[in-house]
């Protein structure tokens, strides 16, 4: 009976997500496309934080996926969806390389080290006109080729079409990440975070699992970057700078990272607030002011994030396993 209800709820959510863009203005549809991509980005960021390390280089890793996919498709004529996958793999590979120096550090040092590594990559894009295009970046990136599926004519310049494409890809990736987190590997990520000495004593190679979480998260972030690059048609170093990283960090922290949906919730709430409510109410100039104030207030008065509110409203939704995880975090 409960699974039947859950299925109905998921179908309802799906229908709502498919109907959503038709009630929005053109600029809101564009925001929706970026919001969906950012949901993938912030969910992948949570995967990275599962092992307890907070990176400041995640947006640059996203950029690696974007640049790689753009270069593969533009210079080597790779079929765009394949280029996107290759871009994601490139991001994962670069992350693999970075993990050797970075995972010699922990905590604050990892934070700063990941920032330095990311910034070096970003400055290389900025410095080298060949092949990265320098400050202006790469323009004229080929779009996803149009297809006609009979029920819907996908023209990917149109935000609605691209939204459906992104929605399908992101949903699949979220499902994958959810499965990974619930698998023995994902549970080991939690163990490495909360009980790393005990996990190591039990024969778990903590560093290998940290690296694995970092690489998987980077692959998904790279895919998010590729999805963004082929929609905008251009990438440049500024779109992956520390300011963008700060946004991802605040989505995750305002949403809360104890649950799978926390960062996604933070991303959606803050984006809607920032792009639609504040802009709609005419607070154009004071937007960063209000955003900054909300950030401080949420850290001060809602330290466990928006997800803790959801937990209060819907206590039955938490499964015994998530409750165990949240309980472990409260004790730590």
């Amino acid at each position: 009976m409960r699974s039947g209800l859950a299925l109905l709820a998921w179908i309802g959510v799906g229908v709502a997500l498919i109907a959503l863009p038709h009630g929005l203005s053109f600029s809101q549809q564009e925001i929706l496309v970026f919001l969906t991509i950012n949901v993938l980005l912030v969910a992948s960021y949570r995967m990275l934080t599962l092992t307890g390390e907070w990176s400041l280089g995640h947006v640059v890793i996203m950029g690696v996926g974007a640049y790689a996919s753009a270069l593969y498709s533009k210079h080597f004529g790779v079929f765009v969806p394949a280029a996107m996958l290759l871009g994601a793999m490139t991001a994962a590979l670069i992350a693999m390389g970075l993990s050797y120096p970075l995972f010699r550090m922990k905590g604050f040092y990892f934070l700063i080290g990941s920032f330095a590594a990311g910034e070096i990559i970003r400055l290389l894009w900025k410095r080298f006109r060949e092949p990265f295009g320098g400050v202006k970046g790469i323009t004229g990136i080929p779009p996803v080729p149009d297809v006609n599926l009979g029920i819907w004519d996908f023209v990917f310049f149109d935000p609605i079409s691209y939204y459906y494409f992104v929605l399908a890809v992101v949903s699949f990736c979220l499902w994958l990440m959810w499965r990974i987190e619930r698998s023995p590997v994902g549970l080991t990520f939690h163990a490495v975070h909360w009980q790393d000495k005990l996990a190591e004593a039990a024969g778990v190679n903590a560093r290998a699992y940290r690296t694995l979480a970092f690489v998987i998260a980077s692959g998904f972030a790279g895919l998010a970057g590729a999805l963004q690059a082929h929609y905008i048609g251009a990438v440049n170093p500024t779109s992956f700078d520390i300011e963008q990283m700060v946004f991802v960090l605040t989505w995750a922290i305002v949403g809360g990272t104890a649950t799978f949906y926390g960062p996604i919730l933070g991303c959606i709430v803050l984006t809607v607030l920032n792009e639609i409510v504040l802009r709609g109410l005419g607070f154009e100039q004071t937007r960063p002011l209000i955003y900054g104030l909300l950030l401080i207030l949420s850290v001060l008065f809602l330290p466990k994030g928006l997800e803790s509110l959801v937990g209060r409203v819907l206590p039955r939704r938490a499964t015994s396993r998530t409750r165990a995880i949240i309980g472990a975090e409260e004790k730590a």
Partner: protein
Amino acid sequence: MIDLIAQTGLNALYAAAYLSLVAVGLVLIFGVMGIVNFAHGELFMLGAYVVVALYAGGQVPYLAVVAIGLAFVGVVGLLMEWTMFRPLRDNPLGGLVASIGFLMILQALVSMGFGVRMAHVPPFTQDVIAFSDRVRLPVQRLIVIGAAVVLLGALWLFLKRTRFGWALRASAQDREAAALQGISINQTARIAMFIGAALAGVAGALTAPLISVNPHMGHSVIVAAFIVIIVGGVGSLEGAVIAAVAYAFIHTIVTTFWDGVIADIVGLSLMLLVLIVKPTGLFGTADRA
């Protein structure tokens, strides 16, 4: 060639002067409160805008404006301590995010008050000390260097010779042990925050006539300051000063002979190298991660 090297050396000395003022404040705040103040570059920016508001507009003498900048930004630091860092003391990540929020507020307020364009600051003095035809040191830069030496010297005396200074260093070493000795943690946090913020503010006020003043100028300053405190060793004030001098020299030389972006890459690579080889920094001892 000798001229070029001498001139580069003078440029580096000036960069080291204001950079060490910013970095020492950052180290002090991190040491006593365990919070990474991401808004530190914006405190620097605020100091510069005090000069824009008072010196460029009114008839207030320059040194008075610098003193006002020091006091004003110090008080802003107290405000940050009181509203954010005290409630978030046991939550480093929360403190970091709150300081990012504060950074956005400061940027927005300054943009609203002064506009996002570059602000013009008239030079305090046009005098130049010419060592030779090609080696010249503007007096304005000499003031920055002199002020940095005086202020850092005063800070050193304060930390090593006064009871407040001992209390500050004690709570930087071990907060709980310091509290058990009857040291007020709230008071040392306030002092550290005031001094740290005031140093950033005075650095901004002193350099305002020499650099481009805009609401986003804090970014490059904070990145350089992070490199300096990591290389010098988080928590080591002497290390921060030495690293600031070394970083300024390397950065200025690479900028002179190659370009600014390469210099940034070199700086960040050095920081990464230090993090890999000796994460406690060249002069740090305690691991405070």
